[in-house]
């Protein structure tokens, strides 16, 4: 038994040595490691909350969002003319509000470790960066997004699968809803991205997300948003931010 054990260790050591003498393993990249393909043009299907997502609801309509009193008061003070005058007509196009908007988005690889998300609605761009954190810089509507593949399986011939988790901070204060329902610069936006396919080949992207904001929310705001992959990309229609409609 002892000789068997010694031989096993020797064989394993030899295997490790052989590997270490081989050419160095290529540096993995987020693009190479991707367990799912998020690239393409996705369209939001507004089958939920139509009256709050497709159009701008009246001031004070804050239904379903867990605002605290300060959030409520801020929403009731919404003034789109003031936003326009301040050059802040994109307040409803920051990442937490944008993703629930009536958007088409194009996702592509900007480089091996950065996914680029562009929307026609508001002509916004957000970068989903894998790897070490980058300097934050000034706050912006899309903030700074760190991305991480959640990979499962893949060992010893088993299927490899997974999802994407992103966390966004460093946001400029903006709106969760077009009618001035606020989030603050302290907001943290966490998203889980999953891709599902139907037998007929249709693909859906589901974004399960949580907005946490100690200033304006009394509980995390949790929703799931779905998009469909478009083969025909002709309906892409860039339109600038609009504070009113």
């Amino acid at each position, binding site marked *: 038994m002892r000789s068997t054990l010694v031989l096993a260790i020797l064989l394993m050591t030899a295997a490790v040595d052989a590997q270490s003498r081989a050419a160095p393993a290529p540096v993995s990249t987020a693009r190479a490691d991707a367990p799912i393909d998020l690239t393409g043009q996705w*369209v939001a299907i507004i*089958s939920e909350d139509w009256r709050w997502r497709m159009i701008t609801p009246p001031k004070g309509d804050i239904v379903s969002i867990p605002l*605290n009193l300060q959030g*409520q008061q801020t929403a009731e003070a919404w003034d789109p003319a003031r936003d326009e005058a301040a050059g802040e007509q994109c307040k409803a196009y920051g990442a937490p509000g944008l993703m629930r908007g009536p958007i088409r988005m194009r996702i592509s690889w900007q480089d091996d470790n950065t996914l680029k998300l562009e929307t026609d609605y508001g002509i916004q761009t957000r970068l989903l960066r894998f790897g070490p954190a980058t300097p934050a810089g000034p706050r912006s509507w899309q903030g700074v997004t760190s991305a991480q593949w959640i990979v499962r399986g893949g060992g010893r011939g088993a299927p490899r699968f997974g999802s994407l988790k992103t966390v966004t901070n460093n946001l400029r204060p903006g709106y969760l809803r077009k*009618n001035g329902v606020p989030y603050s610069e302290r907001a943290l936006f966490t998203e889980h991205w999953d891709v599902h396919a139907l037998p007929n080949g249709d693909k859906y992207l589901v974004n*399960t997300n949580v907005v946490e904001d100690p200033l304006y929310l009394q509980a995390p705001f*949790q929703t799931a948003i779905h998009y469909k992959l478009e083969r025909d990309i002709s*309906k892409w229609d860039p339109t600038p931010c609009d504070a009113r*409609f």
Partner: protein
Amino acid sequence: MGSDTMRREILRITTVFSVLWLISTPALAQVELSGTYAIRMYEDYIERGPGSFLGDFTGMPMSDEGRAKALRYSSSLPSMIERQCLAQSPWVGLYRPLAIRIWNEVDESGRVVAWVMGGDYLRDTVRIWMDGRPHPSANAWHSPSGFTTGHWEGDTLVARTTHVKTAWIRRGVGIPGSDQSTFTVFITRRENLLTIMSVQEDPIYLTEPHVVSRVWEFDPRASQAPLRDTCNVGAEIPSLEDTGEVAHYLPGQNPEEDYMVRTYNIPKEAAMGYAHTLYPEYRKALRSIYKPPDSCGRYCCGWIERQGLPGAAPGLTCNDGNLPPALRKTLTSPGR
């Protein structure tokens, strides 16, 4: 050690490693879904809370047949004794204001035979068979819960439901689903969040798949008992009892057909659930004709209003427009 002995040892070790490799290969991916999940009504709150406005079919890709049937609906219909237990779609839970309880059923070896999603007093329990059994013949009995099989795709449980009854597929507005409906449902748990996305296809009442996605949060205290109660009936509209009359509206006579138009200024085609109104390009048509109403109307505060109950955040004053002033004063009084 002789060469024969060495070969035997190598063979033996190879065998041992092979067996270890084989038995350590992971089984098909499965996620433990068992538990109770608290509802998070941050989407479609009005429908899931107090109930939709009659004539609100926004977000629906309905066929003309579906629209006509929905407009015949009266809220008195399910109040009639004969109809209080009418089947609700097995996946109507995505529109109901309730927690979800999930558990599994295993065979004697511990293998999961089915995942089960507990029902409630209006919705049957859904059993998702995982043992590879086929769907029944197209001519087989259609039950309130339909027939559902499932398999894992990565971390997602993918369920397919057939053999459903004709039923209301959303809450309280009469939107119908036919017994030819099929549902493909994706159930994914990410950390403490459970996401369920359903894709309903219906050749009778829909013009394209109806897609909805919802979130629940794992919460061991979220159980709502009794989970599945017998449907007890009682006369809610005594004047209709034993008359043989069936509450309904004749075509073109539903007084709420224009409710969304006159209340929220949205175009009638959007309120009436035409598929093209679900996509961003429809905003081009809306831009020139939509004017926000001067005030919110009813149910403006929704979630906050529920928080006026014990455990509320203090001091909220949202003007719901639907809350009696005396109750509002009580709920928002300082020190509450």
